[in-house]
């Protein structure tokens, strides 16, 4: 390749599997003008270590496959130029929040399960178009639809990363998803209660870390999460609705009402209704949740 600068960059890549254990392996990669971290990883695969696993597809920041933690920052490797990083060795680690599979590849399947949980776009049965929609509505929705599902926001969110609440918290990506559906002028479903109860919207205490790392510059907190929280507040805390609800004595689940204090992650997770408490102590909680989700009925599937 032309553009060789004559210098080299040292890459420290975390290699290994949960079974074999992981360790940083050092590679020296010749520096090329404009080289991104993914180029360096490719050089390693081609020349130094054909067994180094990483995900990538478009190499143009459009597919969101090559997410990794470079020098501790969650980024897309295809968009991170080595000359923009601090001098010295470059560490490349897999996303920490997701279970490791091998080297830079992690198990992100939980995200796909959450997506299935969210009822899809649904228009009124008698309103089949062609539709008239105003550009201003498209402009607002387009921000949510820009998401490339790199899951960097999920990776950096402390509710998932530090507290490991994948079982009760959808995560920023999916609040963006819900917001995009809820604000579509032709969608007729209401996902507010689900987002609060199953999605655990209340756990988010708007630290904006997700917004910080989004490579598409989506204002996740301001434009997706906060509007959803406002809908919840409107639904739950509007005084007239509150009185109406009290009069009708509709049972509510008190635990989900306010933003709860985050429990100690070391403690076993709290009871979620019909779960078998005894089974929770010694099982892989993620597996159990997956099982629950698989067997749960989906109202939109007849």
């Amino acid at each position, binding site marked *: 390749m032309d553009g060789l600068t004559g210098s080299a960059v040292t890459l420290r890549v975390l290699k290994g599997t949960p079974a074999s254990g992981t360790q940083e392996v050092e590679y020296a990669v010749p520096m090329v003008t404009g080289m991104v971290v993914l180029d360096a990883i490719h050089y390693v695969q081609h020349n130094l270590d054909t067994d180094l696993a990483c*995900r990538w597809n478009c190499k143009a920041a459009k*597919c969101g496959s090559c997410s990794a933690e470079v020098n501790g920052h969650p980024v897309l490797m295809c968009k991170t130029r080595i000359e923009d990083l601090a001098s010295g060795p470059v560490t490349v680690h897999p996303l920490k929040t997701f279970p490791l599979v091998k080297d830079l590849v992690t198990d992100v399947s939980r995200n*796909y399960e959450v997506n299935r949980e969210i009822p899809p776009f649904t228009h009124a049965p008698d309103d089949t178009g062609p539709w008239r929609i105003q550009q201003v509505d498209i402009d607002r929705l387009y921000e949510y639809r820009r998401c490339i599902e790199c899951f960097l926001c999920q990776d950096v969110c402390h509710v998932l990363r530090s507290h490991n609440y994948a079982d009760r918290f959808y995560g920023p990506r999916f609040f963006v998803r819900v917001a995009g559906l809820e604000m579509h002028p032709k969608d007729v479903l209401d996902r507010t209660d689900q987002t609060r109860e199953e999605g655990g919207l209340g756990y988010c205490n708007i630290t904006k870390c997700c917004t910080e790392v989004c490579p598409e510059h989506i204002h996740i907190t301001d434009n997706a999460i906060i509007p959803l929280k406002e809908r919840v507040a409107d639904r739950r805390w509007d005084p007239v609705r509150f009185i109406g609800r009290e009069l009708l004595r509709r049972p509510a689940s008190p635990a989900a009402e306010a933003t709860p204090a985050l429990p100690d992650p070391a403690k076993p997770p709290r009871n979620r209704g019909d779960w078998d408490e005894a089974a929770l102590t010694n099982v892989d909680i993620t597996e159990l949740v997956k099982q629950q989700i698989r067997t749960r009925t989906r109202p939109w599937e007849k």
Partner: protein
Amino acid sequence: MTLEPYDTLDCDVLVIGAGGAGMRAAIAAAEAGCSVAVVTKSLLGKAHTVMAEGGIAAGLANVDARDSWEVHFADTMLGGQLLNNWRMVELYAHEVIDRVYELERWGGLFDRTDDGRIMQRAFGAHSWKRLCHVGDRTGLELIRTLQDKLVHTPRAEVHMEYALTSLIKSGDRVCGAMGYRRSDGRFVAFRCGAVVLATGGWGRMYRETSNSWEGTGDGAAMAYEAGAELLDMEFVQFHPTGMVWPPGARGILVTEAVRGEGGLLYNAEGKRFMLEYDPVKKELSSRDVVARSIYEEVKAGRGTPHGGAYLDVRHLGAEQVRKKLPSMVEQFHALASVDITREPMEVGPTIHYTMGGVRVEAETGAATVPGLYAGGEVAGGLHGANRLGGNSLGDILVFGKRTGEAAAEYARTRGTKRHIDERLVAAEQAALLRPLDGSDDGASAGENPYKLHEELQAAMQDDAGIGRSEESLQRALAAILELRERSMRMHVGGGRPLNPGWHTCRDVTNMLTISESIVRSAIERRESRGSQWRFDHLEQDAELGTVNMVTRRDGATMRVERVPIDPLPDRLRPLLQRSRFYDAAKLPKGYLTAAAARAGAAS
């Protein structure tokens, strides 16, 4: 031969590939009542469809009332130099309109006109403003919409990160496919009533490409091995505008929407050279013409410092650029430190699309082997010698649906599940495992698959690229055959779970097959037409304007034959004149006369 235990999965319809075509086919087959397995090499939603930026071409006539499916038909046929399968083009131009509205009903977004209808933009060689789009991310929007629809469609199951390497036949019928799960390397076999190939195109055998790692031609190679015919393989599209600097970004696509929105091309001397090459369509000429023009300018010494042309949008105003081309602003800012609202972009041709592919029946997408269907870029015929921008997103929707429905019908009526011949499975397992065998004395004795890939890219780029000659093509062929020989000795270290070196071995094998077909077809087509540019045959050849090149397997030998094109029927022939760019004098030489003569002789 030993047989390693493997997982067997059953379904009515197996869809290989989960880009737009695969997902649309899967939805159609599931809605027809079949159980469907969708298999992808990557994660769901990462397919190359996300790279499509410009939009979906459809004659809605929202912006320009003069447009219609008939004009769209004419533009597509003329753009393809009339080598297209006209029946496919007819179905396509008709049905893509419904597919766009359907996508909207499934939640897809499109930019709007002032009165709230779907907005359409201008694009190369389309008569009127025709491309339905949302910003410059229409492919992503399409993928996300189909993805959401698919995962909520009953009876459809997605298998992510599986590599299928070979089709399974029972007698003359395709009845399944086998391969392995990438995460742990375990072998799998899918048993089904019908297979839909939706594996996309193949650009990875070229060095400067806008394709992702997935574009290795697996589907076409598998189909070829199973005895199916490939069509028009010599036609490989160079997109005129890829990034040329910095080296790491070379080849990354710069959407045609930049020119659709009014971007202009200049050479290093500041001259708008497209005014000379195509005074009518100018920057919005068809892709083959613009790509060649840039190539000529660079060759004549009027290129930019990094060997390209300047693409300029500054005159549109910063606000308009940021609104209509947001991902281009981001891409140049992040990868090249260029602010495109203040500086021109440097661009040059990059491999983008493959017009050729599996030869299919127009209505159903059925390949020439029973039980096998192909839709989207992996299928050939719709685009002829050159594809117009915006016709690929429409292609995958229209023919995704059609192949899915046809495969479902076949699986229900004729595709009874067959017994899998385990000798085939054992042979495939042995072939897959050969590069991992510890039998030879370490990596030094074997060939590195990545090195073979790099050598193949060099041969294809230099000798079978944008400009070709008998001499260069023969050189490319010799290189491919030599690499094929060496590929038998590929060796990689490591185990089977997520081992990219091992995965690359199979990719290289597939790419060699496809490259050979491209080169052999290009040798046979001794003329310049569409994307095929022969330095030694600069003119069009009347006789070659009436035939397609068809590749088929004859034992271990690859054969390329001329197959006559059905003449354009009388009901469609007058439609050609509806194109704004119709010029009887400029019709491909010999097409109408030769076709009419043949039609006359036949009757």
